[in-house]
Every structure is written in structure tokens, then in C-alpha cells.
């Protein structure tokens, strides 16, 4: 009997003139059967698909890389782990073990950090709304509080007066760096004088002491000059605040916003060519800071601690999402489309990134333009609008990356359960760090009024 050939989905690719990429050819999709030595296929069998997989090794490497880039250039550096980027407990604790404080922006996040065992004295509390109860708890526990608006300033003063002690406080600033879109909704504006008004008000209070300045200039900031300008503006404002009031600024917190190695939609060049390294960010920031604080040491003033709230650039490429093909079709324009079991419900960042997609196993056949859709019954559920892939078969697994930032916090429970998250530990073992949701996860917190217990009461015997 003659050997039969393997079946590959039939494909017909038209030859078109033009359309060449002058920056290089389409990169071949290499397959990836494992992560940090852990085979992915058995994990899909055990935990189901889709599945998020975090690399502990990569997470630690990134945290150390960030710290090294800055601490070799500036004497006092602190990293506050941005909880909103990924607050899975295991992820947070890896970063805490690497020395990072918790940077939280809500009561939920504050409580989560405390529940993980982070002392209040190692929590940076940002955000536009800190409810009275948690604000008082945070002040009592010695958290670093960054005031967002005047009402919060008065609320803190009232608490401090009631407690009968002076409380060190930080002030969130906003200003125009000239390089990024100003984020003016958070904190006190510098150009209008609102920031200096707040400094004066704190300076005149016996219950508060200005201890630090904070600002956050944007997100996925690719231009390091924006940070250089930010550092200079903050250092100059520090000098002005100390001149105007009897305060001593202990730290400058430059927030987050460093870009990760992800492909922002609309950018032509690949991330490797446009995303600055930690060293490039550090060089720009520390150069500007050194220049702006040159006179401090001579005057006997200490250099401020440089606080970073880097989230995305630390965690994004430490996590992948594995998803399976559950259907395929040809679109009216001839393009191939695949339906995946993971969509924008799990990949919030698919709205603005062109994630890298690579098959778990080698795929046969010619690569052609493919649209990757998620499983939601919504037109906007597109994971990739265009990606070159060989023909996909039912059950084929695809690895989507980087997905570590914002997806495990902004994912939504919309018509699907959220899947499990596992971590490949440094020793190669794989541990679940979040179990897959079940129907019961959702229904457990629902309550049914007595009269609505039966969906079809007319069929029930009275």
C-alpha cells in the first residue's frame, strides 16, 4: 500500500505587485513548544485552554535589570510595583521578593497588598479616590500617600489633627514636558500655580509635612527626552518648594510609563527598534536629575530617592497566553480567518497592540494573511486584524505574547469564564497561581428572590 501524504489545508495565494516591506521581509513564525523548559501541551491538557503562563525567571530578570540600570547611575533608587498592571498575588510576591514596594491606586489594591503581607510602610498609595476609611488606615500604617486634589489634602489634615500627629505627605504634580500629551487630570498643575498653592498650604499646616513629589507623564512613552524633562521639572520644583516652605523633599517619584517590547498598533517599526532599553531610560533620567541637583550636596542637602513605578516594562514579556483554534473560515475578501477560544475578554491589550503570535507546534503550509478572532459574539473581538500564518487546523495552539501587563487585571467575565494562570517556577516546576473560573464562581455571589426561584413556574405543581 502506498504511503498517503499528510493533509494541509488548501491555499491559493495571489501574486501581487508592490506591498513589499522596505524594512525587511516578513519574519517566519517559529514554533515554541515550551516556556522555560516546561512543555506547554501537557499544561493545556491539565489546566485547559486558554491558559496564561507566567515565567518567574523572566519576571525576576526584568526586575533586576531595571534596578541595575538605575542603581548603577543614582545612589538611592526604589521600585514600587504597579499593582494595577498585574496584581496576581504570586506575581506581586515575586517582585516584592526582588525588593519592590507596592504601588497601589485603590482601596482594593491597598487591601490586597496588606493581605499579601506587605507592611503599610512599603506601600505607595496613589489614585484619585482614597476612601476615608482606607486613607486613615494607610496614614496610620505609615504608607506613602500622594495627594491628588485639595479635598484629599483637607481630608488628610483632618485625620492628622484627630490623630494628633504630623504626617509626611507626597504631592502629585502634573505639567507639560513638551514631549508627551499632558496628563492633567491627576494631581496639582504646575503651570497654573496650583501645585505651589498646595505646597504653601501644606507648609502652613502643623499637621502635614511635605516629604515627596510624584508625577506620571503617560503610558508607553517611547521618547526618553520626555523623562529627562520630567526629572528636570520635578527637581526644579523640589528646590522651589524647599525655598518657599520649611520642608525637605526626601524622594522624587517619576511614576511609570516605560514601554514594553510590544508592537503598538500604528507603529511601523518593530518594538526591538523603537522601544528604549532600561539603560536608555535611566541614562536620560539620571543625567537630567544629576544636572538639576548638582548644587544640593554642596549645600548639605541630601539627594532625593528616585522612585520608579515601572509596571508594564517589567511584567509584559514575562507572560504568554496559549489559545486554541476552535474554527476557521474564509472572509468575503478571500482572507483566512481563525476563531480562537481567547478574545478581547482576556486580551484587553489587543485593542492597542499587535501581539506576537507563534504556533506551539510546527505548522505545515504557506503563510498567508490571517485574521484572528476571539470567541465573543461581538464584532470588535479581534485578536489580530492581520497576521501571516500557515493554514490553521482545529485544535492548533497559538502562543500570544507579551501579555503580562494589564490583561490579568482588565480582563472581563463576559459570556466566558476566565481561565487558569500558571507560573513556571525557577526550578522548572509549574504551579497554578489562579484557578480557572467556573459557573459557580459567578453564581455564588448572586442571590435569587424567593418568587424568582423557578424560571417556568406555570409548569411547577402548585
Amino acid at each position, binding site marked *: 500500500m502506498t504511503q*498517503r501524504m499528510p493533509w494541509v489545508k488548501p491555499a491559493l495565494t495571489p501574486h501581487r505587485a508592490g506591498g513589499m516591506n522596505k524594512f525587511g521581509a516578513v519574519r517566519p513564525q517559529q514554533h515554541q513548544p515550551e516556556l522555560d523548559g516546561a512543555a506547554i501541551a501537557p499544561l493545556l491538557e491539565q489546566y485547559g485552554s486558554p491558559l496564561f503562563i507566567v515565567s518567574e525567571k523572566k519576571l525576576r530578570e526584568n526586575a533586576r535589570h531595571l534596578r541595575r540600570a538605575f542603581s548603577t547611575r543614582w545612589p538611592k533608587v526604589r521600585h514600587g510595583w504597579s499593582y494595577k498592571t498585574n496584581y496576581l498575588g504570586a506575581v506581586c510576591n515575586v517582585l516584592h521578593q526582588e525588593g519592590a514596594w507596592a504601588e497601589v491606586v485603590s482601596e482594593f489594591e491597598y487591601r490586597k497588598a496588606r493581605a499579601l503581607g506587605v507592611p503599610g510602610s512599603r506601600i505607595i498609595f496613589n489614585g484619585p479616590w482614597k476612601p476615608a476609611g482606607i486613607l486613615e488606615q494607610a496614614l496610620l500604617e505609615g504608607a506613602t500617600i500622594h495627594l491628588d486634589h485639595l479635598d484629599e489634602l483637607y481630608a488628610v489634615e483632618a485625620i492628622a489633627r484627630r490623630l494628633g500627629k504630623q504626617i509626611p505627605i507626597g504631592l502629585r504634580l502634573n505639567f507639560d514636558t513638551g514631549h508627551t500629551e499632558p496628563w492633567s487630570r491627576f494631581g496639582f498643575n504646575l503651570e497654573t500655580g496650583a501645585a505651589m498653592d498646595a505646597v504653601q498650604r501644606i507648609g502652613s499646616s502643623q499637621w502635614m509635612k511635605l516629604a515627596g513629589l510624584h508625577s506620571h507623564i503617560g503610558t508607553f512613552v517611547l521618547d526618553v527626552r520626555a523623562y529627562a524633562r520630567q526629572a528636570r521639572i520635578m527637581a526644579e520644583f523640589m528646590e522651589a518648594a524647599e525655598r518657599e516652605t520649611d520642608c525637605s523633599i526626601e524622594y522624587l517619584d517619576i511614576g511609570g510609563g516605560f514601554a514594553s517590547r510590544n508592537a503598538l498598533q500604528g507603529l511601523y517599526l518593530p518594538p526591538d527598534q523603537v522601544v528604549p532599553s532600561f539603560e536608555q531610560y535611566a541614562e536620560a533620567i539620571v543625567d537630567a536629575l544629576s544636572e538639576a541637583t548638582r548644587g544640593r550636596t554642596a549645600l548639605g542637602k541630601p539627594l532625593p530617592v528616585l522612585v520608579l513605578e515601572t509596571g508594564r516594562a517589567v511584567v509584559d514579556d514575562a507572560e504568554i497566553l496559549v489559545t486554541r483554534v476552535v474554527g476557521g473560515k474564509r472572509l468575503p475578501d478571500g482572507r483566512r480567518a481563525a476563531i480562537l477560544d481567547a478574545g478581547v475578554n482576556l486580551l484587553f491589550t489587543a485593542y492597542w497592540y499587535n501581539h506576537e503570535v507563534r504556533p506551539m507546534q510546527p505548522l505545515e503550509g504557506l503563510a498567508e494573511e490571517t485574521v484572528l478572532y476571539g470567541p465573543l459574539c461581538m464584532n470588535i473581538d479581534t485578536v489580530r486584524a492581520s497576521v501571516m500564518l500557515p493554514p490553521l487546523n482545529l485544535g492548533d495552539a497559538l502562543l500570544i505574547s507579551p501579555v503580562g501587563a494589564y490583561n490579568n487585571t482588565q480582563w472581563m467575565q463576559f459570556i466566558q469564564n476566565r481561565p487558569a494562570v500558571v507560573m513556571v517556577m525557577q526550578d522548572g516546576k509549574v504551579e497554578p497561581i489562579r484557578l480557572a473560573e467556573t459557573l459557580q464562581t459567578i453564581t455564588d455571589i448572586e442571590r435569587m428572590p424567593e418568587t424568582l426561584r423557578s424560571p417556568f413556574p406555570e409548569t411547577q405543581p402548585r
Partner: protein
Amino acid sequence: MEKANSPIGQSVDLPKPEVLMRLALSDNGFVFDPVAGNSFTVNGTGLAILRRLQHESDLDSIVASLQEEFEVDAMVAERDVIEFAGLLRNAFK
């Protein structure tokens, strides 16, 4: 378009036989339409289907014939032939 009716009543729209017949097919997957002037690359499976469609329009016969040459389930082959026929309709009018 002509309809090829399978014994179970399933029909597949195909380009006209004379359109399919005029295509020049090479063994390495180069397809040339001398009337429209368009050229294409077809993979091995697509080439096998295209060659059969030039002489055969019955879906079940095509699927059976493909199963002799390829390691494929009849349902999968049928699904892919139907989808491929859609591609051909758009490519060769």
C-alpha cells in the same frame, strides 16, 4: 457558475469548467490564468484539488479520490474542498 450536486444533495459552486481548464498548473504550485493574466501560488493540497476539479465536479468523488492520496478524514476534506471552491470562485471569474 455551475453547480456540482453530490449524491447527498450537497452542491458546490465552481468556476465555469472552461475557466478551470484554461489554467496552467505547474507541479511546484505555480498557477497562471492566461486570459486574466493573474498568477497564484497553490499549495500541494490545493493543487491536488484543482487538478481534480478540472475533470470532475462531483464533491463525493473528489473527496474519495483525495482520501486515496492524502491522510484525511472525509469530513475535513469535504469542508476544505467547499472552502477552497469559494476561493477559486473569487480568483477565477
